[in-house]
């Protein structure tokens, strides 16, 4: 079986990440319950005629995909696989409120079309004229991980050579309101500074697009090798440590071999216990890294973890703002990532320097 490499990365997030030469050089401290993406100038990437019907999620996805392709020096890929928890939420809201407000009359197709979950994957294919395999996964916090798993499988079996994968989700006002009334979004504004220690219920919601070119041919630009990815629909808090351990074992790794662990901790007192199970036990001596205080929580926030782990493996530098404990290591070669949302859809990923 072939090895799988991350040849390029691109991130549009609530931090200034779209300039790939930087690695969180300046941090934006967010104070609100929802944090919006810092957007690049879309016109630099998408012709106005194509952009006019694109929702924010599509623009973020299309631009992040172009950035990833550019960095990999590719004009075409063999497959496009995207993940999105909610799809183009703004268009879904627009079409739905149109139905209700106008009693099902005078509705127009554009927002309906954009609301289809595979619209980003389809638009990227259209832009690239890529007639290859095109899948979209929509499984909560495992949407992106499913795409990663799929791509890895194809590359290992040499069914493809270069695959563009990405995760994208956008914030939309009404859904934000709904998530506030059910307390999935925090009741009070919380600063990035103390979000992860907030000890309150709910998360701060964010948005963004993170795209990668995966390949079974390592390029000079390569960031990391994707060693393994595994997803679970359910796990109880008491399962997490054991599951992590057997995952490492399956990959012939020990806890000591892990140079850093990237945790999807989001400051929700009800569910951060899952991460604590790892951080206080197995990995108490391992450098721990968190990121959702910078970009918020969303179904495809976890690929930001892959983005930063890739950066760490390549640059051997961990920005202080990401450090969750005081542990350090001389070199970063193997990183474990763990994520879940509200106790569901857990993922474990191992990346290795290459």
């Amino acid at each position, binding site marked *: 079986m072939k090895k799988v490499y991350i040849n390029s990365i691109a991130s549009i997030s609530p931090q200034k990440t779209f300039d790939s030469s930087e690695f969180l050089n300046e941090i934006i401290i967010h104070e609100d319950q929802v944090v919006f993406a810092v957007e690049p100038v879309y016109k630099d990437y998408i012709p*106005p*005629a194509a*952009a*006019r*019907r694109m929702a924010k999620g599509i623009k973020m996805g299309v631009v992040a995909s172009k950035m990833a392709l550019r960095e990999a020096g590719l004009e075409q890929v063999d497959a496009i696989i995207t993940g999105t928890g909610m799809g183009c939420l703004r268009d879904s809201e627009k079409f739905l409120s149109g139905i209700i407000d106008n009693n099902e009359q*005078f*509705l*127009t*197709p*554009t927002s309906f*079309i954009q609301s289809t979950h595979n619209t980003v994957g389809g638009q990227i294919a259209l832009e690239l004229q890529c007639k290859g395999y095109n899948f979209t996964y929509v499984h909560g916090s495992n949407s992106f991980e499913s795409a990663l798993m799929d791509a890895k499988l194809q590359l290992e079996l040499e069914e493809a050579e270069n695959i563009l994968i990405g995760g994208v989700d956008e914030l939309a006002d009404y859904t934000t309101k709904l998530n506030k009334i059910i307390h999935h979004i925090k009741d009070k504004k919380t600063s990035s500074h103390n979000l992860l220690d907030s000890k309150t219920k709910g998360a701060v919601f964010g948005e963004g697009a993170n795209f990668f070119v995966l390949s079974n041919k390592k390029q000079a630009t390569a960031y990391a090798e994707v060693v393994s990815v595994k997803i679970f629909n359910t796990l109880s808090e008491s399962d997490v440590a054991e599951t992590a351990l057997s995952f490492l074992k399956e990959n012939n790794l020990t806890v000591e071999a892990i140079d850093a662990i990237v945790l999807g901790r989001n400051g929700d007192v009800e569910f951060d216990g899952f991460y604590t199970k790892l951080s206080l036990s197995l990995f108490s001596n391992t450098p721990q890294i968190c990121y959702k205080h910078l970009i918020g929580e969303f179904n495809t926030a976890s690929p930001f973890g892959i983005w930063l782990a890739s950066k760490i493996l390549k640059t051997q530098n961990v920005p202080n703002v990401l450090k969750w404990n005081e542990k350090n290591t001389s070199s970063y070669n193997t990183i474990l990532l763990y994520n879940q949302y509200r106790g569901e859809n857990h993922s474990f990923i191992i990346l290795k320097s290459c």
Partner: protein
Amino acid sequence: MEALKQELKENIIEQLNLEDMTAEDIADDDMLFGDGLALDSIDALELIVMLDKNYGIKLTDPKEGRAIFESINTMAAYISEHRSK
């Protein structure tokens, strides 16, 4: 008629998100589809809703739209003849 044409241009720009355009950029006889503004079949559906909503004209077959939406001139002519509001 001139007022209607102006109104159509403004509505088209707004409805179809032709962000970088102004009404002055569209000539009355510019082809809306194909070589001119390069609108597509989804835009045609948007325009059909516009006819219904603004002028009370209902088209049931998108094919009917082709001749009507050829240019601002043809649209304005069709609307003046068939409008019910």
